[in-house]
């Protein structure tokens, strides 16, 4: 039975190479406090190391192992509580290493630099994205959303007019582009607050007969379930009014910087859960089109982040490979007469191909949330 010694051995090997710097922690542990960011420590050789880190400060914070020349991060311990010990593991290669301490309400500190000689390849250090890096992308995204909402105001007014005039066939045809426009704004829904529920809420918690259920899906349900113009008019009015109110409020709303990276996979996570399952099909059978709109929204975020990602994320080409594949598979379900194949009508093989491409795209997108998370440096 060698599997137990395997881990223990790694820990022993790693800790034996380290010179601890006192403090109140156990020997072979690297200590951090408000005056010392790791103290004196050594790395004898490259290879896989696990460090025991002790937070001797009276506040929590974050400890990064960085390349002091570039500021790149090899490894981090976040949410590091005072008086606790954490481990940090990495494959150490030739290069320079230093700890950086980011304690709450304390100026950052960088400890002494340790050099590992030679030409051994280890983990690469990723240069953190800063809050400042995300200010311009966020501004651009604000403008993107504003332009989308402006377009949406016209589209929902058109839809409202159709319903008021009793032209429900035209309403069914004008509903889709309006809904798709809204579905391209996925990184802003949290910022929209209760507007999002009013404009694009699901019936789930309320039930389809509850008058409090409003928005695109409510109209879809009525338009594709034979409800009358008079029954739907209040909902069409309200949708147009809500979109106007949202546009008016938008300049005062803020998207947290962390959301820009986070939503790059979350938009499609939602598409997988609600659109590709058919859950959000209230009658029009257009959830594949909705997924395409969600891809467009995802691409917008990627394009804003591209300058930051291209130097940090080797998997970025694969993101585009799989988004392209997913997009092509979805576009193939847009019939020449302009209608969409619904998820429930998809042949099993086509559905598997779509689900597979979406799943792989999500795997490729997932790291971006961590890489584009704004960090203090």
């Amino acid at each position, binding site marked *: 039975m060698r599997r137990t010694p395997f881990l223990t051995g790694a820990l022993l090997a790693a800790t034996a190479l380290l010179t601890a710097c006192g403090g109140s922690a156990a020997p072979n542990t690297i200590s951090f406090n408000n005056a010392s960011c790791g103290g004196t420590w050594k790395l004898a050789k490259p290879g896989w190391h696990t460090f025991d880190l002790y937070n001797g400060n009276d506040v929590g914070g974050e400890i990064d192992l960085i390349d002091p020349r570039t500021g790149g991060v*090899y490894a981090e311990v976040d949410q590091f509580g005072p008086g606790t010990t954490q481990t940090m593991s*990495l494959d150490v290669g030739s290069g320079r290493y230093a700890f950086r301490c980011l304690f709450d309400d304390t100026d950052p500190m960088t400890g002494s630099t340790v050099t590992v000689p030679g030409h051994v390849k280890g983990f690469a250090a990723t240069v953190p994205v800063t809050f400042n890096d995300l200010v311009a992308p966020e501004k651009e995204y604000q403008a993107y959303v504003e332009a989308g909402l402006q377009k949406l105001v016209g589209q929902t007014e058109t839809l409202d007019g159709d319903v008021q005039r009793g032209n429900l066939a035209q309403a069914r045809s004008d509903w889709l582009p309006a809904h798709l426009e809204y579905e391209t704004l996925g990184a802003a829904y949290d910022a929209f607050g209760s507007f999002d529920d009013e404009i694009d809420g699901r019936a789930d918690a309320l039930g389809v007969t509850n008058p409090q259920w409003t928005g695109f899906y409510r109209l879809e349900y009525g338009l594709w379930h034979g409800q009358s113009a008079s029954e739907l008019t209040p909902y069409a009015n309200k949708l147009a009014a809500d979109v106007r109110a949202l546009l008016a409020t938008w300049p005062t709303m803020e998207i947290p910087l962390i959301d820009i990276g986070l939503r790059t996979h979350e938009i499609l996570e939602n598409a997988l859960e609600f659109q590709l399952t058919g859950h959000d099909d209230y009658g029009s059978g257009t959830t594949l089109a909705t997924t395409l709109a969600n891809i467009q929204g995802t691409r917008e975020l990627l394009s804003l982040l591209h300058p930051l990602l291209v130097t940090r994320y080797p998997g970025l080409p694969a993101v585009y490979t799989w988004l392209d594949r997913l997009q092509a598979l979805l576009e193939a379900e847009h019939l020449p007469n302009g209608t969409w194949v619904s998820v429930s009508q998809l042949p099993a093989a086509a559905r598997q191909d779509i689900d597979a491409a979406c799943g792989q795209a999500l795997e490729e997108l997932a790291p971006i949330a*961590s890489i584009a998370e704004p960090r203090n440096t």
Partner: protein
Amino acid sequence: MGEAEDKLPGRRSFLRGVAGGVAGGVVAGGAAGYALHGPQQDPALAADTASLDGRLPAVPFHGKHQPGILLQQPQTAVVSFDATAGNRAELTDLFQTITSRARFLTAGGTPPPVGIDGPPSDSGILGPTVVPDGLTVTFGVGPTLFDDRYGLASQLPASLTPMRSFPNDNLDPAQTGGDLILQFSAGNTDAVLHALRDIAKHTRGGMQINWRIDGFRGPARPAGTVPRNMLGFMDGILNPPLSEANDLLWVQPGAAGEPAWTAGGSYLVVRLIRMFVEFWDRVDVYEQQQMFGRDRATGFPLDADSLYALPDYAADPTGAVIPLNAHMRLANPRTPQTASSRIMRRAWNYDRGIDQVGDLDMGLIFTCYQQDIQRQFEAVQTRLINEPLVDYISPFGGGYFLALPGVRDASDWYGRGLLT
């Protein structure tokens, strides 16, 4: 000790082309002795006695044959996939990715940290270190993989047809067939599900789950006997001895038009069989025993006083003791003419909720391995048509597959002979 530092586990992912590292140095000796077990020594029992802290030792991954064919771990998930790989090169990448993940998962080790570059590389459901827990990952291919998508039509194994529907079958297309099958078996359910999640995560673009069923085998009761099915009878008591494996178990290329790449493989038949246990529990035990041909409590053949005794049908020509239509008598009449139809049975119980009338949906994941499906499984199943047991069971899914040849060493991969 150096191996722990030098050999990071592989991170290979579908179409990422990241060559997997090698975690092989940490493999324990494990249950290498399975090949020595005869039919009377269940490998799972042997493994169970070797377990420490509730976990089974690692099972060596490399070998001429896949280890999960002979070794039967107590917990299992049988998962059918359809390939969604876009072309032959992607299919090759898929098989290589499955290989490198299975190699790591069966050996165990600590998943690599990712720094600030993404979510954790492992689900963490086994804790910070992946314990092997006797994991086996058995990989097979179904007949539909050999259609026109990947240019494999000429490599179709001779015996690999779509699963036949027998009289009394009630096959659900949504739970039948599949391009690929993966069976994950281990000492505990968490290790089974960890492996399933890991491989699915690394292959999302290359394959999609088609159907899936989880199974278990209880400990043998009484100890030293054989685990029981949901009808209360011991299941799989007498299997062919491994001395006959080259005649009954392993595909022999050259014979009967088998392509060369199948050497070391074995045909896998999966039959998902619902058991109507409420109905069964309302049946007199003597009638139950007549249907099987064995004593329910002891497992002994009705004409013998020991578990592994061979029934003597010649001495019972009219079926006075073991009826002529008893399950075990039809399945294996023990005549020279039927000897070549014997199969290597591997069954697990399943349990998954209730049916429309509130009865329990439980039954058997019957699997068997053989050299030739038509000569063996289909011949056995043909003899079983209209056996008395059919009133209490309903086969509803499964499929025919070829369990691929074993992965020989660190440079080999599943299906290399098929795809190169």
